[in-house]
C-alpha cells in the first residue's frame, strides 16, 4: 500500500530530482542556486517584458504540442511537427505577402486556414503510407521534416528572397496579416490567445463529441474499436491530418505574429519540443497549455538568469531533458507497479477461490 502511494507521487519526485540536479549545476558554476531560481521565476513572470517573452515562447509549443497530442490520443507518434510547422509558416507567408487589400479580419483567418491546410497535407502522406502500406509513421514523418526545412530554405533563399537581404528571408507580410500585439511595447501577440482558445475547443471535442470518443477508443484498443464497428483508418487519418494542421498553425503564428517574414530555418526544433510537451500532458489539451506555459517560462526566465547570475541558458535544456527523462521513467515505472499490484490482487483473489497451491 505504501508502495502504491509512493508510486502515485513518482512524477513529483522526478521533477524535484531534476530541479535538485539543476541546483547542483548552478552551484558547480559558482553561483547561488536559490538566487538563480528566484531570478528565473522573476524573469518569467514578475517582469512585464519577461512575461511577454514567456507568452511568445509558449505559443509555438502550445500549437505544435496540441498537434502531437491529437495524434498521440489515437496512438500515433507525430514526429513530423517540425516539418508541418515549416509548411504552415510557408503557407501563411504566401497568403500574407501576395494577397492584398483584405481587412485584417479576413486576411488573418485566411492565412491561418492556409497554414492549417498546408500542415495537414504534409501529415497526409505519412498517415496514408501507415494505413495502406504499414510504414512506420515515426520514420516517414522524421524524413519529411528535412524535406520541409530544405523546401522553405529553397524558397526563402531563391524566388521569394528579399532583394539585397544579408541572409535568406522573404519580404514582409502585409500589415493586415500581422497578428495584433496584446501587451503594448512587447512582442506578445494574439497567437497565444488563439492557441489557448483552440486548446479549450479540443478539450471539449475530446470530452464530449463522437469523434473524441472514437479517437480514444481507437488509441486504447484498435482491434476492439474495429470490432465495435468504428472506422479505425478514417479516425486515425483525421487525427493525424488535424494534428498536422495544428502544427502548421504554430508556423503561421511565428511568421504572422513574431517575425512578419518567412526566415530560412525559422523553427529551432519546436516540433521536437512539442513531442515532449504532448507526452508530459498525456495527450490532454489543457495539460498541453500548462506544460507549454511551464517550458515557455523556463526559456524566458533563463535569459534573465543568464544576465543577472551569469548561468548559461543551456542549463535549462539540460534540466528539461533530465526532467523529461525522469518523468518518462517514473510514469512507466508507475504503470509497471500498478500492473504488478493488480496481478498480486488477482492472485490473492484466485487463492481465496481456489485455495493456496
Amino acid at each position, binding site marked *: 500500500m505504501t508502495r502504491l502511494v509512493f508510486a502515485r507521487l513518482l512524477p513529483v519526485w522526478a521533477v524535484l530530482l531534476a530541479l535538485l540536479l539543476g541546483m547542483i549545476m548552478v552551484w558547480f558554476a559558482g553561483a547561488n542556486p536559490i538566487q538563480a531560481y528566484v531570478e528565473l521565476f522573476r524573469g518569467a513572470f514578475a517582469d512585464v517584458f519577461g512575461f511577454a517573452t514567456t507568452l511568445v515562447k509558449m505559443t509555438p509549443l502550445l500549437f505544435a504540442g496540441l498537434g502531437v497530442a491529437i495524434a498521440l490520443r489515437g496512438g500515433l507518434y507525430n*514526429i513530423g511537427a517540425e516539418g508541418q510547422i515549416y509548411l504552415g509558416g510557408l503557407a501563411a507567408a504566401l497568403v500574407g505577402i501576395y494577397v492584398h487589400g483584405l481587412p485584417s479580419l479576413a486576411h488573418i483567418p485566411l492565412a491561418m486556414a492556409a497554414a492549417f491546410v498546408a500542415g495537414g497535407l504534409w501529415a497526409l502522406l505519412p498517415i496514408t503510407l501507415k494505413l495502406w502500406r504499414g510504414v512506420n509513421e515515426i520514420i516517414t514523418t522524421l*524524413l519529411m521534416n528535412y524535406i520541409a526545412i*530544405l523546401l522553405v530554405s529553397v524558397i526563402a533563399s531563391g524566388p521569394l528572397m528579399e532583394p539585397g537581404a544579408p541572409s535568406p528571408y522573404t519580404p514582409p507580410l502585409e500589415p493586415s496579416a500581422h497578428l495584433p500585439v496584446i501587451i503594448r511595447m512587447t512582442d506578445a501577440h494574439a497567437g497565444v490567445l488563439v492557441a489557448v482558445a483552440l486548446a479549450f475547443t479540443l478539450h471539449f471535442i475530446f470530452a464530449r463529441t463522437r469523434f473524441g470518443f472514437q479517437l480514444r477508443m481507437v488509441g486504447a484498443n484498435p482491434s476492439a474499436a474495429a470490432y465495435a464497428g468504428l472506422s479505425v483508418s478514417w479516425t486515425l487519418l483525421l487525427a493525424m491530418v488535424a494534428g498536422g494542421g495544428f502544427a502548421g498553425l504554430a508556423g503561421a503564428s511565428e511568421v504572422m505574429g513574431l517575425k512578419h517574414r518567412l526566415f530560412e530555418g525559422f523553427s529551432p526544433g519546436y516540433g521536437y519540443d512539442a513531442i515532449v510537451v504532448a507526452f508530459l500532458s498525456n495527450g490532454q489539451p489543457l495539460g498541453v497549455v500548462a506544460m507549454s506555459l511551464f517550458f515557455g517560462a523556463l526559456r524566458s526566465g533563463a535569459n534573465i538568469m543568464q544576465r543577472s547570475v551569469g548561468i548559461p541558458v543551456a542549463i535549462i535544456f539540460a534540466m528539461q531533458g533530465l526532467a523529461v527523462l525522469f518523468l518518462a521513467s517514473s510514469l512507466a515505472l508507475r504503470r509497471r507497479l500498478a500492473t504488478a499490484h493488480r496481478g498480486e490482487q488477482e492472485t490473492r483473489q484466485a487463492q481465496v477461490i481456489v485455495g493456496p497451491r
Partner: protein
Amino acid sequence: MSILENALLLSALASAVRLTTPIGLAAIGAVISERSGVINIGLEGMMLSGAFAAVVGSHYLGGPWMGLLAAMVAGGVVALLLAYPSVTLGAAQIVVGVAINLAAFGLTTFLDRTLLRPAGIERVAAFHPVPIPYLSELPLVGPVLFMQNPLVYLMLLLAPALTVFVFRTPWGLALRAVGENPRAADTAGINVTLVRYLAVATSGIFAGMAGAFLSLGHLDLFTENMTAGRGFIALAAVIFGKWHPLGALAAAFVFGAADAFQLLVQTYNLGFPYQFPLMLPYVLALLALAGVVGRSAAPAAAGQPYPAEEA
C-alpha cells in the same frame, strides 16, 4: 579531362568521404539498435556527448586515441540512460530519445562554458590523415579513401564486420529475432532485455565514435551543438540503407556526397538551388519506404516495448 578538373573531382570525393564518416559511424551502430527493435532517437545526443568527451579525453588522458576511448565510453553510458527507461521500464522510446538530445545539448554546452573555457582548454591533440602504404598510391580510390584519418578506416572495417555479425552469426540471428518478434524470441529462450541493452549500448558506442570524428577528426576542438542534426541524418541513413550495415554506409555516403556536391553548387553557382541535392536522399528514402523504388521495411517490432503494455 584536364589535370585541374581531375584534382577538383578527387578533392570533392575525398571531402564527401569525410562528410560521410560521422553519419556512417552513427548509422551502422544504429542499425544494430533498430534491428533489436529500439529506435534510437537519442543518437544526436550520444554523438554530441561523444564529441565533448573526446576533447576532454584527448586533453586529460593524453592524445586522440584516449579521446576516442572516452567518446565511446560516453556514448555507451548515455545509451544506457536510453536503455533503462525504454527497455526495462517500457517508456516511450521516442520521448526518452528526445529527452536525451535535450539533456546532452544542455549539459555539453553548460560544461563547455563552465569547465573547458575557464580552464583554457580549446585546441587539443587530434587525428591526422595517415596514408596507407601501397593502397594510397592507387588511382582514384587511393587519394579518396586511403589518405584519410584512422576513424575513416575504422568505419570502412566495421561496416562489413557488423554485416557478418548481423547476418552470419547466431548472435546476429538472436538480434534480428528480437527485433522482428520479441515474444517468439523470448519463447525460444533468448533474453530480449539483454539483447536490447547490448544493441542500444553498441549504437551509443558507435555514436560516440562518430562524435569523436567531429571534434578530433574534422576539427581539433568542441563547439556547441556541433552535431547540427547529423544524428537524425544518420537515422535517415539507416532507413535509406534498409537496416543493413553496408546499406547504411552506402546511404551515409549518398548523404555525404550530396553535402559535398551542394558545397560545389554554392561555390561555382551551378544554376539550381543547392538544397536540391541535400533533399534528394530523403525523397529517395521515402520512395523506398513507399515501395516505389525497391522495397524497404523496418523491423516489425521497431519502437515497441517488450513485454507489451496491457491496457
